[in-house]
């Protein structure tokens, strides 16, 4: 979306109403601008028009410029006369960072949140839902609008950052690193804000989600500020290779995590009859695969990098699967005819892609398979870290965790089967959202630990007692013993057997649900889709921005005029 486009569209009516001849070069520009505008997401066009006229943008932009100007004057005066002979760049850049961070990490994500929430509150989302725009396009459009505003802020502050750089004391890579960190964080936080916007529809829920988002933004502002200010004031402590790795890992993490939030935000806007889960499952799969790649690459940087990387990413993925697995297992089992039309039909497709299709049965299998793959990979990575260049300190930490990984997989599989049963029971009486799966997961995990422990306590007359096989579902105690390397072998294998039995039992019982039959798409629907695609392509190929008719129209009109003229004469 260009400024030319905005002007061209806004003035188009008056241009159309005037009969004065338009210079050919201007017409060409108009044509080009309109063609470019047609290719842009409509939400971006609308949001930009709105944002550039909104008080919020005008106020924020003016304040940003004033603050930057103020800091330039005040900061420079405060550092006089040392500014002439001492490096003063870091101090000035800290001020500019603070000026830029507030709109980037706070104002823009909140504006994006409010924008999507307003669409829901004002009823315009309903109107958008019945257009050709997909929920994903709506979310992407909002994100693009936020990105455009970020670009404007960056451009506005660019001279100030350049000024700080000329004052010496800070190198270009660090400046780029700080600005990149700000941009990446701003975009990621905006996507998280867009995910939060449709989460709740009631007033109480909206206030709660807004508070949760505010907390996230404030914590992120603080954490990123801590990191950025450290980089500016103390320099980058990492080597070039380590810096490249951290940048690469951060980009991979943010991009793939953001794609999950984007898919989830779009799913919340999609109607019930749509397939809302496949995109999320693919995004989760890509996220896990990419992070496994990052962990594997970290091995080449030595155990001091590989160990914390594996631990942090492994923990993150584990928490992710607890959340995602619970929600996938809590999906509605209804699979509409519309969804069934897009099911895989080939043997290989049914074998591998069935797990991406909607439903709690496929969701559970998808989650468990991924958890097992994750645990296996983490086990292998831990093995590599300790065996290749291991130190005794790392080995002491790693080996107990390696022992606990299979237990974690088994417990999660068992708990997910419990979640599925619990939510299906609830859904039989009331329609429930998938987020209820999180509550169900908490209940199941709590019951798995508390029930055997309470029974044991009761049987032992409320005195301290030792671990026995009766406590095998008590995951907290069992994993605690495994980490201390005190878990009996039979308990270890019993836990694995429990997880396997629950999962296989689930597979046996839900065979038909897991493999729904594909429905053929009616011929008329296919024909209509082809026709629509053809119409759009045709229009796109021959745009006529001024409504003057296409070239062939004009040729035809010219011929008619010629005939009229000859008849008159």
């Amino acid at each position, binding site marked *: 979306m260009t400024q030319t486009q905005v002007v061209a*569209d*806004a003035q188009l*009516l008056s241009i*159309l109403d005037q009969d004065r001849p338009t210079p050919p070069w201007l017409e060409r520009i108009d044509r080009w601008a309109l063609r470019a505008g*047609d290719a842009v997401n409509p939400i971006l*066009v*609308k949001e930009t*028009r*709105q944002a550039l*006229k*909104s008080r919020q943008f005008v106020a924020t932009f003016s304040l940003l410029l004033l603050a930057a100007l103020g800091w330039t004057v005040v900061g420079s005066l405060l550092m006089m006369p040392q500014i002439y002979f001492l490096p003063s760049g870091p101090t000035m850049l800290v001020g500019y960072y603070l000026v830029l961070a507030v709109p980037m990490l706070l104002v823009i994500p909140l504006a994006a949140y409010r924008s999507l929430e307003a669409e829901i509150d*004002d*009823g*315009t989302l*309903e*109107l*958008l*839902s*019945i*257009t*050709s725009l997909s929920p994903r396009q709506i979310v992407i459009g909002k994100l693009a609008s936020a990105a455009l505003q970020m670009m404007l802020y960056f451009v506005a502050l660019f001279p100030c950052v350049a000024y700080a750089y000329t004052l010496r004391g800070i190198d270009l890579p660090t400046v780029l690193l700080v600005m990149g960190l700000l941009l990446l964080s701003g975009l990621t936080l905006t996507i998280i804000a867009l995910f939060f916007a449709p989460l709740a529809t009631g007033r109480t829920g909206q206030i709660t989600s807004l508070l949760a988002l505010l907390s996230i933004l404030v914590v992120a502002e603080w954490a990123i500020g801590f990191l950025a200010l450290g980089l500016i004031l103390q320099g980058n402590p990492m080597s070039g290779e380590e810096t490249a790795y951290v940048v690469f890992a951060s980009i991979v993490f943010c991009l793939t995590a953001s794609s999950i939030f984007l898919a989830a935000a779009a799913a919340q806007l999609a*109607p*019930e*009859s749509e397939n809302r889960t496949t995109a999320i499952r693919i995004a989760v799969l890509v996220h896990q695969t990419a992070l496994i790649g990052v962990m594997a690459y970290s091995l080449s940087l030595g155990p001091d990098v590989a160990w914390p990387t594996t631990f942090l990413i492994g923990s993150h993925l584990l928490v992710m699967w607890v959340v995602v697995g619970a929600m996938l297992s809590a999906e*509605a*089992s*209804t699979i*509409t*005819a*519309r969804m069934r*039309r897009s099911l895989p039909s080939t043997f290989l497709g049914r074998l591998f892609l069935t797990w991406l299709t909607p439903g709690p049965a496929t969701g559970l299998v998808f989650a468990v398979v991924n958890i097992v793959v994750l645990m296996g990979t983490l086990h292998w990575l831990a093995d590599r870290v300790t065996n290749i260049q291991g130190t005794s300190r790392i080995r002491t930490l790693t080996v107990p965790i390696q022992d606990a990984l299979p237990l974690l997989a088994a417990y999660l599989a068992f708990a997910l089967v419990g979640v599925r*049963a619990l939510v*299906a*029971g609830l*859904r*039989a*009486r*009331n*329609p429930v959202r998938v987020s209820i799966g999180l509550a169900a997961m908490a209940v199941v995990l709590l019951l798995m630990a508390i029930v055997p422990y309470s029974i044991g306590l009761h049987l032992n007359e409320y005195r301290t007692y030792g671990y026995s096989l009766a406590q095998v579902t008590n995951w907290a105690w069992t994993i605690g013993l495994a980490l201390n390397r005190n878990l009996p072998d039979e308990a270890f294998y019993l836990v694995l057997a429990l997880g396997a039995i629950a999962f296989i039992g689930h597979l046996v*019982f*839900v*065979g038909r649900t897991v493999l729904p039959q594909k*429905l053929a*798409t*009616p*011929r*008329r*629907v296919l024909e*209509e*889709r082809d026709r*629509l695609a053809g119409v*759009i392509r045709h*229009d796109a190929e021959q*745009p*006529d*921005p*001024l*409504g003057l*008719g*296409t070239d062939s129209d004009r040729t035809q009109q010219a011929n008619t005029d010629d005939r009229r003229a000859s008849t008159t004469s």
Partner: protein
Amino acid sequence: MSRTDDATTEIADQPQSVFGFRLHAGSPALVADQVTAVHTDEECCIELRRVHRFFGKTKAVNDISFTVARGHVFGYIGPNGAGKTTSMKILATLDLPSYGEAFVDGFSVINDPELVRNRLGYMPDSFGTYRDVNCWEYLDFFARAYGLMGAERIRRLRWVLDFTGTRKIAEKPIRGLSKGMKQRLCLGRTLIHDPAVLILDEPAAGLDPRARIELRRMIGELAARGKTVLVSSHILTELAEMCDTVGIIEQGQLLATGSVDAIQRERQQHRELVFRVLRRAAELADAVEGHPGVHGVSIEGDSVSMEFSGDAEAQADLVRQWVIAGYPIVEVVSRSKSLEDVFLQVTEGVVQ
């Protein structure tokens, strides 16, 4: 008419299964049987087939079926909370039925919503406008959202601005518009992609008489252009004038459907007849009393009023009989019941 020959069943609040065993609750939710959804009528542009929509125990829409022929205007009448908006939202692909099927131009609103949306214009009872945009930008945005590009978009925008009479306010911000103008703008938005079917939810609500007349004119013109219109309103006299057929809904159930005249005839057991007689009103009243089909005779000055149940032939015979009998009858007025009377007779005024 081609057929949408896929089996479809959409159950929003249907009973779920636990490990493959179906659970049935005490609620009136329905089992997901396979229903063959086939749309066979070429002239039928809108069809609701046994549509149900439950919100918990509330039956917002309870087994509604009707069709609207291509190019017709269908009036949807019912008290507040009757289920009009819910069924309109189902047709507009904004909600799913708990059970049943709905078609627009032969396409299922459940299975092919994108094809339905392409040929459907929906105007909700709220305006749904944006801040900080002018009328032109608003319409242009929706034109883009419907995938209109280049010259086609400009042509449609110009047509819509002319048709709705909003060209002069094209560059005015929406927030400063009157209610009538906003309503025109929203109608413009509904028409921007040239839909074959229009669903208008209370379009005349809150408008002054002039704006209502204008709106009625526009709807009439759209119907003349071959658009199929489903319109709901509380202003029954207007609906009676503009609609070819009406449906009366209450408590989620369709109580009557058909042309206004047909419903009036069907529901009307008595027609009010008034004879104005010179000098002999009391005598005529005595004479008509006891005549087959005549009830509730009353006198008011020179006029004798009565309830008459009979067809047009019987009414003509009655008049002829008393004229031949020599009564100086100077005027005969036959009053059929208005749509409002029929509506009041059909509905009970119960709100869910």
